[in-house]
């Protein structure tokens, strides 16, 4: 045992204020007596957010099944009397769940060997998962699933494990005694999709080890933008509480740094807890050791300068993050995201200035198609292993655009589909075309830009499909599925 090891042991119990310890004990005991929900009361008051887990992950899941003896059988009127005798799909307690993505079903047996998996151990979520998997479930049948998808392995306290996988269509597959059973249901947002969101969110968490250290503590958190604006010493614009799609506020701060005062708002989208957009408006003198991105500093020129409705926006890229920064009189604004693309960020700029009337958001691609003013072909709601992430359209009477982003556990990036009635020349002029191919009698332009492959073609409308970490053949397969080509 070396000296460092011995010194580390001295940190086993850190000094603790006895008064605080007793207070904490009494509060805990009081909560147990009152059977309060699990919310740290004083913490909740201080940060304005109850310390509850991400329980929203598991909403909207419906399965019906019956488990009789050794096999699954179709549910139906004849079997209803067996309900009381029904065994449970999961008998014990789920201790943890491994989530990953991969290929053929057999991989499930070796999921611990995967390097890219996420472990779900939150006891409340595991309990909820168990309850939902123990809900009645419909028919299963032997199938032979191929392709890639999300894989989940449940580890039970009795030492058993259960492997499930989904190709992110409407089915879950279960391997039992080397036979693959398929579970069918009606809900497009199945539990595997929710677990996939957890997987993606957790991966984003894990890659965030390089957080910069705090530099200032002169800040205040707010519950609403209105309250923050009341305290903010200047008139500024913000994207509002719900700027686009299903965005909601995650956190609001007003920060003072020397002579600079900033309002910072982070937004999250859908069910994810992670901020996907950060907005900031700042007023005041920029400290000497900071670089103002709206100044077009020589050492850090913008990648693109966009003239957007008369406002000059500087676009920067920092790894996966796109940053739009601009100045409006004495206010410096920025919107940044590592999740959204350039067009989405421009929509947020529009939202900041109150012009979002031309935009519409949809829950499904089918709804967007039906509402679109032109006949349009789309990849639909479940192309290959992707599921829709954000679906919206823009229509100002002249320009119409349908825009869908998809996510998949297989890819780190986003698959983007755009259909528009007029070609986006500004985008095309950026160059990067690497090939022109004839496929199924149609002409496709292949672009390679910023580690992203883009496929563009014309078919009454102008279309494009793009993604990173993807082969052009995979994009062509999606096109084939769109047009029903073999």
């Amino acid at each position: 045992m070396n000296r460092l090891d011995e010194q580390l042991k001295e940190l086993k119990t850190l000094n603790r204020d006895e008064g605080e310890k007793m207070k904490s004990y009494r509060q805990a005991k009081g909560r147990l007596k009152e059977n309060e929900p699990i919310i740290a009361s004083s913490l909740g008051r201080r940060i304005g957010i109850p310390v509850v887990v991400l329980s929203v992950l598991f909403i909207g899941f419906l399965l019906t099944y019956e488990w009789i003896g050794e096999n699954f059988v179709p549910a139906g009127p004849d079997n209803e009397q067996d309900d009381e005798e029904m065994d449970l799909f999961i008998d014990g307690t789920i201790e943890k769940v491994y989530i990953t993505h991969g290929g053929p079903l057999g991989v499930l047996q070796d999921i611990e060997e995967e390097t890219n998996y996420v472990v779900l151990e939150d006891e409340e979520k595991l309990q909820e998962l168990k309850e939902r998997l123990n809900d009645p479930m419909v028919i299963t049948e032997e199938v032979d699933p191929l392709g890639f998808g999300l894989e989940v392995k449940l580890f039970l306290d009795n030492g058993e494990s259960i492997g499930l996988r989904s190709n992110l269509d409407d089915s879950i597959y279960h391997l039992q005694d080397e036979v693959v059973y398929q579970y069918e249901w009606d809900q497009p947002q199945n539990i595997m999709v929710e677990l996939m969101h957890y997987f993606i969110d957790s991966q984003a968490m894990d890659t965030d080890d390089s957080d910069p250290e705090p530099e200032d503590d002169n800040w205040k958190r707010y519950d609403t933008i209105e309250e923050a604006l009341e305290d903010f010493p200047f008139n500024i614009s913000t994207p509002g509480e719900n700027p686009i799609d299903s965005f909601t506020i995650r956190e609001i701060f007003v920060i003072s740094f020397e002579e600079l005062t900033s309002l910072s708002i982070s937004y999250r989208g859908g069910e994810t807890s992670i901020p996907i957009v950060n907005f900031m408006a700042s007023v005041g003198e920029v400290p000497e050791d900071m670089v103002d991105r709206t100044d077009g500093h020589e050492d850090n020129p913008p990648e693109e300068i966009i003239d957007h409705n008369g406002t000059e926006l500087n676009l920067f890229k920092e790894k996966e993050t796109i940053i739009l920064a601009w100045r409006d009189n004495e206010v410096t604004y920025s919107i940044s995201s590592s999740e959204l693309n350039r067009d989405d960020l421009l929509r947020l700029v529009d939202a900041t200035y109150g012009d979002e009337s031309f935009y519409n958001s949809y829950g499904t691609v089918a709804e967007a198609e039906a509402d679109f003013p032109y006949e349009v072909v789309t990849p639909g709601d479940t192309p290959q292993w992707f599921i829709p992430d954000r679906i919206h359209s823009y229509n100002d009477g002249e320009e119409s655009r349908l825009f869908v982003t998809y996510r998949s556990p297989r890819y780190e990036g986003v698959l983007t589909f755009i259909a528009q009635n007029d070609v986006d020349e500004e985008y095309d002029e950026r160059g990067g075309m690497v090939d022109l191919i004839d496929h199924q009698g149609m002409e496709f332009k292949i672009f390679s830009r910023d580690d992203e492959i883009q496929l563009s073609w014309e078919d009454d409308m102008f279309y494009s499909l793009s993604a990173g970490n993807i082969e052009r053949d995979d994009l062509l397969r999606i096109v084939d599925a769109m047009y029903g080509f073999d």
Partner: protein
Amino acid sequence: MNDFEDLYFQYSDRIYSYILFMVGDKEIAEDLTQETFVKMYRNRDQFDGKSQFSTWVIRIARNCTIDYLRKQRPIYLWPFEKIGTITSAETVEMNVGKNETVQELYDHISSMKRSYKEVIVLRKIQELSVKETASILGWSEGKVKMMTHRAMEKLRLEMKEEVEADESFR
């Protein structure tokens, strides 16, 4: 309820220390310790006795802590390149009431990235086994060994650099 009292006073200092390492704020560490014990007691029938009780409670504490940390993710302030994380001032400096070297150790560990911090706290400070640590972190035992090695190497390097820097002024 008496068994709650026994459990609280037997384990809460250890749990508090673990959480304090992770969040760096005494008040929040007290809140999360409280939450951990409430959850532990409400779910005590789920403890199956296959692992040590303390390991099970640390796992609950970790879940509570991670849920808290998720909500505290830093905000990036983009127009100006130097502004970074917004967090509690108490995180920066804290007197742990130990001698100078141990205080330095605390400071170095606190500033490490989460994965290194966790593995040092669990393996070297809480003295859990590789298997117990793997179970809590959801890692393979091989990964625990590898990460412990890397984290300790980094800690040794930082401690050494500090000693050398001090000596160079003498």
